């Protein structure tokens, strides 16, 4: 590595990189390896994969392009970045699809070997963009990735196809060199992953190293960059995706409460990873029941809750629709239950791999009869961890179903989670009813919560069910007044949750001209937009909702302190509908429904527009 010193290392604050290729090119893997290494280096980061709904669209086609975007920085960041500084394009289609998102002077590293006639045609290029000058505003770095990979592996006894498959690691090696990252994290990963296939392990290791050396030795790369570790709050961190964080949160809630976790679930994009993730944790006594359908997923969880477990079911919009009848049963029988809905573009099959916040009203109202339940939402991938614990805490404390809203953006995106100490997390103290004296299945406590008396408890044998219950006694009742009493009590019980959730926090001035009110996964882009407008001298405040039903106690008060309320959300205005109808506040909406998260700039521009442009400073 003698030449290494000849190349300049330049310090930069942040970078956004996008890896893109065919769905078979291993781009998600390449991206997640770069992410793991970057996390270990100590940068703050945020990632977003973007992959097609089809498992294998035709190779080289535009619809088959899979991408992984990573934003990392030496300071606190909240989003995977609006537009990439660097694009690694494994084929013409990947270049074509991603070009429009790039910054003007972005760096593009392309695999020149894939720019042959067939692939150019598939990508609908009339001429070869590497030769026709159309990329002149970019810093184009052509690398014969396939060829270099093959020659690095010449002497290994692998098939051509197996060798060719390693080319993503050549690209990864180049990127590691370019951003001054160690390759050891990935080497270690390869050793674990291919323990049983030593030739494949060797091949990938060799190609990774070759890519790194290529950056080092060839003339085409002149500059390396360094992004120093971020000055994050002290502590131990790990990188988590939203789905992974939710799974960890649910297990933590099980440890906190001492109750076993039971997941009943049917695979559905983008929620399946929660099922997959939880199925690994048998050593925590987690039961994952892969049910025959969505209905059985929730029903088995209700059964488990009846028997004393934490009942959980994971799904996405279409699955939530199938579960709604059973949710009515859980409301009626007042059993604790958590539903995590990882929202995707709808209706129907819609955009299964894309993000949207359009299940909000379904979560609030999508049931027969008067069936209120708790609704909360997560605001970032790492926040899924905390909100999963909150969902369990509320469900158990209030004997109620809780819907936790996540979405595709949070589920697949990732960021560092500062690992909290177990004792820093909220307590979940649950006592089953055991005393026979004075036991009535629907005798409520001061919060209007009924006792949880589980099968196996001597002397408390009782029957519950979906028919209307007689107040206190829980037997069947068709009395008109009783029905009204019970509807009121079920509603008031949910309302009482207000008393155990945090108040809404306003960031910035506590009163003034404009409040940006948001909920769910839009947190990151809005937070960064707020930072930018503040830097430009505008005055606006931000409040982010994590509790939706009930809303935090002080929401009305907060809304009253601002002249204008701007509500950005990834739907046609569902939260706006709730706020308008509950608080009679006229909100200004910013809606986007393209299956994509907000860009920071979109929010920024809207805030400035609402504040009256330059005059709003």
């Amino acid at each position, binding site marked *: 590595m003698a030449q290494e010193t000849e190349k300049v290392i330049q310090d930069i604050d942040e970078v956004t990189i996008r890896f893109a290729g065919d769905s078979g090119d291993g781009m998600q893997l390449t991206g997640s390896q770069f992410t793991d290494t970057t996390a270990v280096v100590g940068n703050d980061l945020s990632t977003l994969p973007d992959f097609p709904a089809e498992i294998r669209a035709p190779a080289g086609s535009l619809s088959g392009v899979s991408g992984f975007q990573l934003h990392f920085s030496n300071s606190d960041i909240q989003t995977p970045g609006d537009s990439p500084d660097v694009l690694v394009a494994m084929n013409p289609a990947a270049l074509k699809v991603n070009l429009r998102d790039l910054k003007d002077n972005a760096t593009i590293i392309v695999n020149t070997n894939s720019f042959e006639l067939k692939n150019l045609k598939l990508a609908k290029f009339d001429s070869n963009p590497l030769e026709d000058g159309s990329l002149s505003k970019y810093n184009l770095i052509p690398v014969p990735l396939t060829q270099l990979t093959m020659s690095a592996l010449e002497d290994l006894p692998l098939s051509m196809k197996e060798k060719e498959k390693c080319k993503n690691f050549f690209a990864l090696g180049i990127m590691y060199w370019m951003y001054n990252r160690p390759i050891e994290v990935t080497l270690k990963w390869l050793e674990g992953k291919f323990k049983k296939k030593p030739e494949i392990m060797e091949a990938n290791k060799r190609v990774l190293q070759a890519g790194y050396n290529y950056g080092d030795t060839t003339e085409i790369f002149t500059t390396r960059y360094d992004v120093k570790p971020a000055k994050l709050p002290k502590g131990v961190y790990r*990188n988590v995706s939203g789905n992974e964080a939710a799974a960890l949160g649910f297990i933590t809630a099980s440890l906190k409460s001492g109750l076993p976790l039971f997941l009943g679930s049917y695979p559905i994009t983008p929620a399946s990873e929660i099922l997959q993730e939880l199925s690994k944790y048998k*050593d*925590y006594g987690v039961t994952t*029941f892969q049910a025959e359908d969505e209905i059985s997923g929730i029903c088995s969880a209700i059964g488990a809750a009846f028997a004393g477990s934490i009942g959980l079911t994971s799904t996405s919009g279409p699955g939530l629709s199938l579960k709604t009848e059973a949710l009515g049963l859980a409301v009626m029988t007042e059993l604790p239950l958590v539903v995590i809905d990882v929202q995707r573009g709808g209706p129907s099959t819609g955009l299964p791999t894309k993000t949207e916040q359009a299940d909000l009203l379904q979560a609030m109202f999508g049931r027969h009869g008067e069936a209120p339940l708790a609704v909360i939402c997560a605001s970032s991938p790492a926040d899924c961890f905390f909100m999963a614990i909150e969902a369990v805490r509320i469900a158990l404390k209030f004997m109620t179903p809780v819907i936790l809203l996540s979405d595709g953006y949070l589920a697949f995106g990732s960021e560092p989670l500062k690992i909290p100490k177990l004792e820093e997390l909220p307590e979940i103290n649950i006592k089953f009813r055991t005393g026979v004296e004075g036991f009535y299945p629907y005798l409520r406590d001061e919060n209007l919560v009924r006792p949880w008396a589980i*099968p196996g408890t001597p002397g408390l*044998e009782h*029957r519950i069910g979906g028919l209307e219950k007689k107040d206190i006694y829980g037997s*069947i009742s068709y009395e008109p007044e009783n029905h009204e009493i019970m509807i009121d009590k079920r509603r008031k019980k949910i309302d009482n949750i207000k008393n155990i959730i945090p108040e809404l926090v306003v960031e910035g001035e506590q009163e003034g001209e404009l409040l940006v009110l948001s909920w769910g996964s839009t947190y990151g882009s809005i937070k960064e937009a707020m930072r930018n407008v503040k830097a430009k001298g505008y005055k606006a405040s931000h409040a982010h909702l994590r509790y939706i039903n009930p809303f935090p106690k002080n929401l009305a008060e907060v809304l009253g302190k601002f002249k204008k309320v701007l509500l950005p959300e990834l739907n046609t205005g569902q939260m706006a509908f709730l706020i308008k109808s509950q608080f009679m506040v006229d909100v200004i909406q910013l809606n986007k429904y393209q299956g994509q998260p907000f860009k920071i700039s979109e929010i920024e521009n809207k805030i400035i527009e609402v504040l009256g442009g330059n005059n709003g400073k």
Partner: protein
Amino acid sequence: MENKIDEVVADVKYTAKDFSSGLEVKWCPGCGDYSILAQVQRQSPDFGEKKENIVWISGIGCSSRFPYYMNSYGFHTIHGRAAAIATGVKLANQKLQVWVATGDGDMLSIGGNHFIHACRKNVNLKIVMFNNRIYGLTKGQYSPTSEKGKITKSSPYGTVDWPFNAIKVATGSGATFVARTLDRDPKHLQDMISRAAKHNGLAFIEVYQNCPIFNDGAFFPLTEKETKPDNVVYLEHGKPLVFGVNKEKGIMLDGLNPVIIDLNDGKHSINDCFVHDEFDENPTRVFLLARFTDLPGFPTPIGVFRQFNKATYDGDYALQIANVKAQKGIGTYEKLMYSSNTWEVN
């Protein structure tokens, strides 16, 4: 009427009365469900389970009122979903003995998917399906077991559907205990209930049940003294299939086809008869027997069609959890959170 709350009865010998919730039973007068309830309550003391460990889960329909009348833990759920909810109960607490009370509509129509998958997985549940071949609670529409051509409120010109044969469905789906019995044969019904209670694995009992209001007499040829001997053949392990007032008729196999033989015609003897083997794991035998109800002149088989042991879903699940715990040690928060790449910021 309030839910009756009991004092703790420590290790006392229960009687049938201990299993009555005291709630006024509200089936129509003469309904076959009364007999099923009475036989279950009579047998419950012999289940060898403490009352608090018995759970009755039901769906929706006349039959699904059942848990309200049993003084055990009970859950009257939603239409068709009893098997799914019961599966969750059993997986959450293996010590419980979990029973499902259901009907032909509840289990074979809206709940069909849950039923076949519970059978397939061999979940340790005991499913008692009251088959009256009609929708009672909704007042008289045809059900998935109604015979083809049946005239009901929703089929004034007769149904054009072929019915399900519950024994075939359960067997085809992998149930490891499959039986049929009659509401009007209390002794036999009791016997089937206690055998199901002892079975380790999914037990399915189809009870032919009379609905005097909407399908009166549907099973009378099988249950009434005059006609029963010619129309019912009792399945008993190791015994030849014989029926008739004087057991003068037998069933013989001609290839894979059953034929009725006259044991007094001088040409046939009891040795020619098909001998029942309920432990045969090969489902062919069950399908052969289950087909009798489709063949004119053949008696309806009553009794245990098959019974054998196979690993249960809940048993294997518990085993897997125990194995992983033994291998990895019991999970802790530290192990959970620090298991992947972590880094420290100072």
